[in-house]
């Protein structure tokens, strides 16, 4: 019990020191991660080769000159380039002369050390988890074949019955003939099929008449129904519209629904022009330059944008000679003799996109939801009230109407009341 210094085993000492060191370096790395995210992540990927605006930083310490070059570069890259530093000018040229922000005055040398510590250390597990979302977000694309058309069943039954009838008849005739021959009688006189049918029909007149009437009515009804489904891109019976497969499996659900991108971001001419417009690939690239994988098809469908734009996702460079226009298929079609103006309906009429196009936020494949027939247009013009209050387009008209008909009528100003049914409004 004398002179007993509590002896800490060497192993424990090492463990404690190591833990303290790890914690402190972890703290530093955490701090560095935060700083990296705030200041660098917009242009650099920390632990991969993936080029963003600037190069990926995997293995950066093996590439750059030794010593404090990288610290000086981060502080003021412009000074290095202007100063004629060979490596600085080399990477400046390699990256399309996109200059890096000067961080002098915003980041302290300590901050930069923390960031470099974060880049050096392996990526923490939580952050390294793949960013891919759950697959199979969308429903299946194709529709299952919905049973066989009853008409074809009936036709098939009729054909089978006819074949059966004909073969049975020939068997009967053959048997009859054999019997006759064995009885040494003449062969039976040939009775034609038609004569036999006529005989049978003569015996069942009432039945044949009723059947004929039913057949005629069914035929007329089906012709009448069929006339409704011709050429209008919309099936009234099933309430289903044109839903073509597009060159890229673009999902409105993911873009407008899950990610809440406004319709006007891509269809930006909807408020300025007659057409809502199909976005150019340049608008796709505004986001997909950075977002290179999707939740369902990974990079496959997004890769088609790059093909169309002549874009190389590895080097982030465009090659105009490799452009290949996308041939989107127009879903909503009006005949040539109809004039329709989007800006008029959206800006002046304040009509919501979904009123005519349905809830695209839930559609994986865009589908025509409204019949787009003249009856449909006119029905809507008859029942939709014009938004007069707080609408600069109608200020004068509304005031004049209110003065002229003060107290006389209790009128709803629907579109047809201000000329929405005139032929020349849409046909000219």
């Amino acid at each position, binding site marked *: 019990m004398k002179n007993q210094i509590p002896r800490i085993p060497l192993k424990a000492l090492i463990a404690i020191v190591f833990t303290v060191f790890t914690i402190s370096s972890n703290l530093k790395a955490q701090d560095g991660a935060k700083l990296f995210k705030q200041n660098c992540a917009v242009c650099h990927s920390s632990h991969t080769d993936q080029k963003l605006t600037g190069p990926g930083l995997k293995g950066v310490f093996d590439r750059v000159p030794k010593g404090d070059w990288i610290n000086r570069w981060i502080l003021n890259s412009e000074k290095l380039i202007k100063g004629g530093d060979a490596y600085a000018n080399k990477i400046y040229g390699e990256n399309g002369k996109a200059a890096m922000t000067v961080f002098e005055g915003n980041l302290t040398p300590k901050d930069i050390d923390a960031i470099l510590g974060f880049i050096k250390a392996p990526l923490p597990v939580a952050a390294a988890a793949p960013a891919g979302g759950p697959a199979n977000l969308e429903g299946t694309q194709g529709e299952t074949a919905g049973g066989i058309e009853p008409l074809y069943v009936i036709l098939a039954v009729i054909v089978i019955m006819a074949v059966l009838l004909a073969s049975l008849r020939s068997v009967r005739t053959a048997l009859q003939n054999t019997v006759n021959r064995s009885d040494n009688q003449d062969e039976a006189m040939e009775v034609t099929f038609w004569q036999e049918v006529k005989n049978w029909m003569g015996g069942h007149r009432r039945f044949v008449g009723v059947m004929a009437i039913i057949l005629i009515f069914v035929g007329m009804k089906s012709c009448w129904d069929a006339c409704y489904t011709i050429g209008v891109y919309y099936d009234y019976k099933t309430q289903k519209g044109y839903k073509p497969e597009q060159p890229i499996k673009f999902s409105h659900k993911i873009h407008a629904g899950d990610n809440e991108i406004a319709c006007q971001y891509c269809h930006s001419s909807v408020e300025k022009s007659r057409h809502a417009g*199909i976005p150019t690939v*340049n608008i796709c690239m505004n986001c997909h330059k950075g977002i290179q994988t999707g939740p369902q098809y990974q990079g496959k469908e997004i890769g088609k944008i790059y093909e169309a734009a002549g874009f190389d996702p590895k080097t982030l460079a465009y090659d105009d000679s490799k452009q290949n226009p996308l041939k989107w298929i127009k879903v909503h079609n009006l005949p040539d003799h109809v004039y329709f103006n989007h800006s008029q309906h959206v800006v002046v009429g304040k009509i919501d996109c979904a009123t005519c196009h349905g809830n695209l936020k839930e559609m994986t494949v865009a589908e025509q939801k409204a019949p787009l027939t003249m009856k449909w247009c006119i029905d809507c013009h008859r029942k939709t009230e014009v938004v007069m209050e707080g609408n600069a387009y109608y200020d004068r008209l509304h005031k004049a109407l209110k003065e002229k008909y003060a107290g006389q009528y209790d009128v709803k100003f629907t579109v047809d009341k201000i000329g929405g049914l005139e032929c020349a409004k849409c046909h000219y």
Partner: protein
Amino acid sequence: MKKNYRTIKLSISAALAGLVMAGFTSCGKKDANSPGVEFMPDMYRSPSLEYYQVHTVDGDTINNAMLPVKGSVARGFIPYAYANTPEGYEQAGLNLHNPLSASDKEQWEKDGEVLYGKFCVHCHGATGAGDGKVGAKLPGPPPAYSGPLKNLPEGKIFHSITYGKNSMGSHAGQLTQEERWKLVYFVQKLQGPKTAGTDSTKVAAAPAATVTPSH
């Protein structure tokens, strides 16, 4: 003989009637990929040259989604004087100022907010913190207006919307210059009052030389 002839005639007409009926009923559209059949030419397939269509005229195939003729200028187009270079960016920051009168600032901010909700919010987030739903999916989220971009001058905001910056693409095709300036007012509102200090977004020394017009 005569009876046989009548039989043939009858059966042929019955077959024809059947065919016509089957034809009519099969017109009912079942394939979602097919636009359907027109009963008679209803001008759904336009004889005039329509946008985004491929047409054949005198044997030549014409794609109507084409770039405008080189050198053509859109009506109302205002040229933008600063080049898409680090120098142009710095020059814009120094010399470019909002032409919309500051006395109507509140109105511009209101208009800008509407535009921001359509064109910016999904990446930059409702408060401009860079926390939009799409921003979170980008490799690096956009920097916060009230953070690293707090002292970004108006000219640089406009320049960035026009040409794009880093991960952001050019929005000049979607927004007119006036709309971009309205957005600048709203972004400045999100930045909050400027702090004393230098612009933290410097990439190059701005040469005092004259502005070189481009575009």
